[in-house]
């Protein structure tokens, strides 16, 4: 019982750390991408409707989405590796 509790707490910390990094971090990066896209689009995409479009926002958005896609690829790799395929 004592040993199990120790192992479980240790595991929970590791899962929490990875979870925060990927499970909360990637959505935040995705949100950053959406924000950049809105900034890049301008006009009605933002609440301040007179905002001008900023082309650099689209580039930033692309980078953010790239990071998210890389994270998803990492998740797929874990699934495939667990199945002994990758």
């Amino acid at each position, binding site marked *: 019982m004592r040993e199990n509790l120790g192992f*479980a707490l240790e595991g929970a910390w590791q*899962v929490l750390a990875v979870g925060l990094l990927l*499970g909360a971090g990637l*959505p935040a990066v995705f949100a950053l991408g*959406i924000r950049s896209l809105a900034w890049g689009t301008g006009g009605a995409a933002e609440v301040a409707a007179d905002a001008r479009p900023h082309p650099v926002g689209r580039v930033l958005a692309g980078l953010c989405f790239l990071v998210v896609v890389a994270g998803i690829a990492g998740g797929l790799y874990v699934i495939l590796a*667990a199945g002994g395929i990758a």
Partner: protein
Amino acid sequence: MTEATLILVLVIGTALAFDFTNGFHDTGNAMATSIATGALRPKVAVALSATLNLVGAFLSVEVALTVTNAVVKVQDSSGAPRPELTADHGYALLLIILAGLVGGVLWNLLTWLIGLPSSSSHALFGGLIGATIAGLGTAGVNWNGDGSELDGVVGEVILPAVMSPVVAGAVAAVGTWLVFRITAGVAERFTERGFRWGQIGSASLVSLAHGTNDAQKTMGVITLALIAGGHWSDTGAVPFWVKLSCALAIALGTYLGGWRIIRTLGKGLVEISSPQGMAAEASSAAVILASSHLGFALSTTHVATGSILGSGVGKPGAQVRWGIAGRMVAAWLITLPAAGLVGAAMWWLGHLLGGYAGPLVVFAVLVALAAYMYRRSQAQPVHPGNVNDEWDGTPATARREEVAA
């Protein structure tokens, strides 16, 4: 047909039935948020989830033969059944497995009927533990493992069930808070469209992970039964037809869609918006994948429910229906003992009658109770047409005509 062949056939049938209930019981874990926010139409969501579960089940080539070792001692560490149980073509072992599976299926059906997302793995383990206690006594249960790793009922079932929803909820709450913080000031219709894609992607990952995790358990149980009956001897592989039938059973179940549970998860706990849905599913995917990578057992149901609750906590001003959450936690607490009681009762029934009659009567009880619960569900059906109705406990009007639409 000999007694041993009969019970083996019934075990396989019941195991596939369990796999099927596992599918529709857990569709909501991945897809409830996408259905609730309208990111995917209900039918499209269950079709996508079913396909990914099917693919996932085939990806799980790792041998899951020792799945019962986590909770009961009916196999050795290689996966072979304990020799004292395999006399008479494994009749004793098969009766334990059959009774345990019946306990798991019946608990899954009852919680589905009342729309509560409880863990399918807990139902299976609970049934097996109950049947094992009845058949072999409490010494047949692996309560704590040997202390060298996370193992036993405590380590593989109880502790993960306590911790995983908390961890998933914390991650989802942080994620939701960050997302709303970052996108403050962006027009809502703009964010809704973007986050719907994020939601679909993260929910798909959860579906795939579910297929790899859960289908294996049934594959392991069926293969164990085949070995006990002397129809298979390779403890390093699962027969292809077992893999195929389990994959199909879980995918069909998923496609059926457990609409009652989807409704509770998507509408009952929190009024969910796309950014919350994405944060919740991303948290679930990360926690499930990190745990399975590190070798911890957990239930996707506990993780998904924790995540959805967390997404309600993390959104400023969101309302969380804690009463519903409390009912779920209560259901989780009694899943293990309740499925265990059914498993034990079924073993006694089967053992008392013995021979051909025992397993047949146990199976008949399963069919009768399943049919009864299905009929009860039809009095107040939940289906793709009313799954997203405003939450007031149960959908007010059962709009049957929309099923055809």
